[in-house]
C-alpha cells in the first residue's frame, strides 16, 4: 500500500511540475511524511528552501514512486525533518544557513555551509579515559579537496570521526537565481568537476522536463556515451587510488594510463578532456564523427582486456585483500536509512540506480545490470566499481553500434515551468530541481549523492584504525564541491 500517494492527494497539486507530482501540503501532512520517513517506509531524496516555502522530495520503493511535498513557511519556520530522520540534518542546517528558515526541533543548532562562527565552531564532545584527538584539514596532504576531519582515537582505533565541511561553498544556489539558461547550464557543469557530464545531463533533463520537450534521439544516445565514458574514467581513477592507499602502486600506474586514454579519446571526439559543456539543454554541443566512433570502440576493447588483468591481480594479491576485506563496513540498514546511492549503497545491499528507476532514455533501451553486494566493506566497494566498468563498456559498445542518425540539438523555447531530474553520476544519483520563468532560472536546487554518503563515512570508520581511514575515504570518494555548493 502506497504511503506517498495519499500524502500527495491530501495537498494542492502544482500544475506545471514535471515529471513527478508536487503538492502543497499543510503541517499535519508534512508531519505524517516525517513519520513515514522515520519508520523507514520512504527514502528522503532531498529537502530544500525556496521563496517562503520548503520542499521535500520523497522516494517510495513499493510501489515505486517519487513525489515532492511543499510546505509554506510564511513566518520562516517549519517542522524539522531531521528531528526524527537524521539523514535530513545537514541539508536542514544548510537551509538555515542559506535561506534563514528555522527548522523547529532540529537537534543541531550549528551552522554548516556558513563558517562565520570560525574557530568557535563546537565539535561534539567526546569523553572517556585516554582518548586523544587528531585534527586533519581543511588543507590535506594530497591533491584533494579541502575539508576538516576531527578524529577521536583510543590508541590507534578511531572511536569517533566528526566531519566539518563547507570549505568550498561557492554560493551556487545564489548564482543560479535569475541566471540565463546558457550560463546556468555552464554553472551546473561546474558544481562537481569530476561529474560534469552527469550534472550537464541532470540540468538539461530538468529544463527539458519543465518545458515538456524532448531532445532528438541521437543527442540522448550521445549523452549516455559521454556519461559512461565519465563513469569509466572515474572508476578507473578510484580503483587505482584505493590500491595505491594500500601501497600497491602498480595498479594505480596502469589505471592512470587507462584513465588518461579515456580522457584523450573524449578530447579527440568531443573537444574537451572531461567533456565539460558538451551537454546542453536541448541536446549535445558536438556530434561524433566516424573516426572517433571507431577509436572509442577500439579503446573499449583494449580497456576490457587490460582491466580484467588488473582485477585478477587485485583478487590474488594477499597484501591488498588484507587491507580491504572487512575494512570500513557500512551496514545495509544504514545504507537504506540514508538512501545511500552509487557504489556505496550498492556495496551494502541497496540497488538503487537512477538509470533503472525512475529511469531515463536511452537506458531503457540498453541492456545492463546493476551489481549489488552486501558485505559493505572497502573490498565490496572496489568490486562494485570493477563490475560497473564492465557494464559501462558493454553499454558503450552497444551505443557505438546502434547510435541513431539525425540532429543533435533542438531549440529550447523561452518558457516557464518546474522540472526535476534524477541522474546517475559515477558516485550516485544527482537530484536537480528547478523553476524556470520566461527562459531564466528562477531557482535551482542541486543535491549530490555525497550529501547522504558523507555522514555514513563517519559511521564506517568507527572501530577501524587511523591508518585505514584513507582506504575507507577513497572507497567512498565523496565530492566536497558537489556537497558544499
Amino acid at each position: 500500500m502506497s504511503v506517498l500517494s495519499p500524502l500527495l492527494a491530501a495537498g494542492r497539486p502544482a500544475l506545471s511540475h514535471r515529471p513527478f507530482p508536487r503538492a502543497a501540503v499543510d503541517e499535519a501532512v508534512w508531519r505524517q511524511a516525517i513519520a513515514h520517513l522515520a519508520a523507514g517506509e520512504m527514502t528522503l531524496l532531498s529537502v530544500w528552501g525556496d521563496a517562503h516555502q520548503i520542499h521535500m522530495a520523497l522516494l517510495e520503493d513499493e510501489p515505486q514512486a517519487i513525489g515532492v511535498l511543499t510546505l509554506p513557511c510564511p513566518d520562516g519556520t517549519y517542522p524539522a525533518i531531521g528531528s526524527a530522520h537524521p539523514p535530513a540534518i545537514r541539508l536542514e542546517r544548510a537551509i538555515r544557513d542559506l535561506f534563514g528558515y528555522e527548522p523547529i526541533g532540529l537537534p543541531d543548532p550549528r551552522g554548516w555551509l556558513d563558517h562565520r562562527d570560525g574557530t568557535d565552531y563546537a565539535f561534539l564532545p567526546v569523553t572517556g579515559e585516554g582518548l586523544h584527538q587528531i585534527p586533519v584539514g581543511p588543507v590535506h596532504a594530497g591533491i584533494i579537496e579541502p575539508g576538516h576531519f576531527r578524529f577521536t582515537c583510543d590508541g590507534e582505533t578511531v572511536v569517533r570521526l566528526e566531519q566539518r565541511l563547507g570549505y568550498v561553498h561557492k554560493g551556487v544556489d545564489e548564482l543560479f537565481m535569475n541566471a540565463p539558461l546558457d550560463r546556468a547550464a555552464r554553472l551546473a557543469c561546474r558544481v562537481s568537476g569530476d561529474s560534469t557530464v552527469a550534472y550537464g545531463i541532470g540540468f538539461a533533463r530538468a529544463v527539458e522536463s519543465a518545458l515538456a520537450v524532448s531532445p532528438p534521439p541521437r543527442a540522448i544516445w550521445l549523452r549516455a556515451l559521454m556519461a559512461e565514458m565519465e563513469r569509466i574514467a572515474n572508476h578507473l581513477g578510484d580503483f587505482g587510488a584505493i590500491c595505491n592507499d594500500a601501497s600497491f602502486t602498480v595498479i594505480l600506474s596502469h589505471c592512470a594510463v587507462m584513465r588518461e586514454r579515456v580522457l584523450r579519446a573524449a578530447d579527440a571526439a568531443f573537444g574537451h578532456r572531461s567533456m565539460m559543456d558538451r551537454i546542453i539543454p536541448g541536446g549535445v554541443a558536438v556530434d561524433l564523427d566516424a573516426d572517433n566512433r571507431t577509436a572509442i570502440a577500439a579503446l573499449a576493447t583494449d580497456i576490457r582486456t587490460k582491466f580484467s588483468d588488473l582485477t585478477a591481480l587485485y583478487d590474488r594479491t594477499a597484501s591488498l585483500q588484507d587491507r580491504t576485506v572487512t575494512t570500513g563496513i557500512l551496514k545495509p540498514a544504514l545504507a537504506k536509512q540514508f538512501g545511500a546511492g552509487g557504489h556505496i549503497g550498492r556495496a551494502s545491499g541497496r540497488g538503487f540506480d537512477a538509470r533503472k528507476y525512475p529511469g531515463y532514455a536511452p537506458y531503457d533501451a540498453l541492456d545492463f545490470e546493476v551489481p549489488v553486494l552486501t558485505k559493505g566493506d572497502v573490498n565490496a566497494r572496489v568490486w562494485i566499481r570493477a563490475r560497473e566498468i564492465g557494464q559501462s563498456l558493454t553499454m558503450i559498445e552497444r551505443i557505438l553500434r546502434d547510435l541513431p542518425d539525425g540532429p543533435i540539438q533542438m531549440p529550447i523555447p523561452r518558457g516557464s515551468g518546474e522540472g526535476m531530474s534524477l541522474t546517475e553520476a559515477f558516485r550516485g544519483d544527482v537530484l536537480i530541481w528547478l523553476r524556470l520563468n520566461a527562459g531564466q532560472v528562477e531557482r535551482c536546487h542541486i543535491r549530490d549523492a555525497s550529501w547522504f554518503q558523507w555522514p555514513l563515512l563517519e559511521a564506517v570508520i568507527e572501530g577501524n584504525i587511523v591508518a585505514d581511514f584513507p582506504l575507507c575515504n577513497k572507497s567512498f570518494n565523496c565530492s566536497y564541491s558537489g556537497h558544499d555548493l
Partner: protein
Amino acid sequence: MLKFLREGLRRPLTENRPPPDPAVAALATTLNAAAQKRLGHSLAIRQVDAGSCNGCELEIHALNNAFYDIERFGIHFVASPRHADVLLVTGPVTLNMRQALERTWRATPDPKWVVAVGDCGADGGIFAGSSAIVGGVSSVVPVDLVIPGCPPSPTKLLAGLLSLFAD
C-alpha cells in the same frame, strides 16, 4: 602476471617536453631571471584547493601519470607547505578557505612562488560575483603566474610550471 607487466613496459608512453606556452609566459607577471635561477631545476609543489569544483585537481593529478611523468623534470608534489617552493592554488578563493589559504602561504618558507590555476583561480571564473567567494587567488595572496583554462590540460600545466625554470 609477467605478460601483464611486459605489456606495460612495451613502449614508452611519455610525452615530449611541451613547448613554452606564450599565453602563459605573458602572464608570468612578477617572475624574473633571478627567481628562475634560484629555483634551478628542482621544484617542490604544495597544491591547495581554495574552492575549486575539483576539475583542476583531476588534471593536476594527471601530471603524475606515465604520459606526463612530471618528476622527470625535477618537479614533485609535497605533503606540507613547509617543504614547498611553490603553492599551486586552484579555485575561486571561498570565504571559508580564505584563512586556510593565508595560513598555508605563511607556512611556506621564503623564497616562495604562487601559481594560480584555472579560470576560477585567475579571477573567480563563473563563480565571480557570488557573495560566498573572495575572488581569484591574487585577491588573497600575491600571485606570480597564472595558468588559465577550465580546466587547463596537463600539457598546459606542465608548460606553465616549466616556465618557472630558467632555460
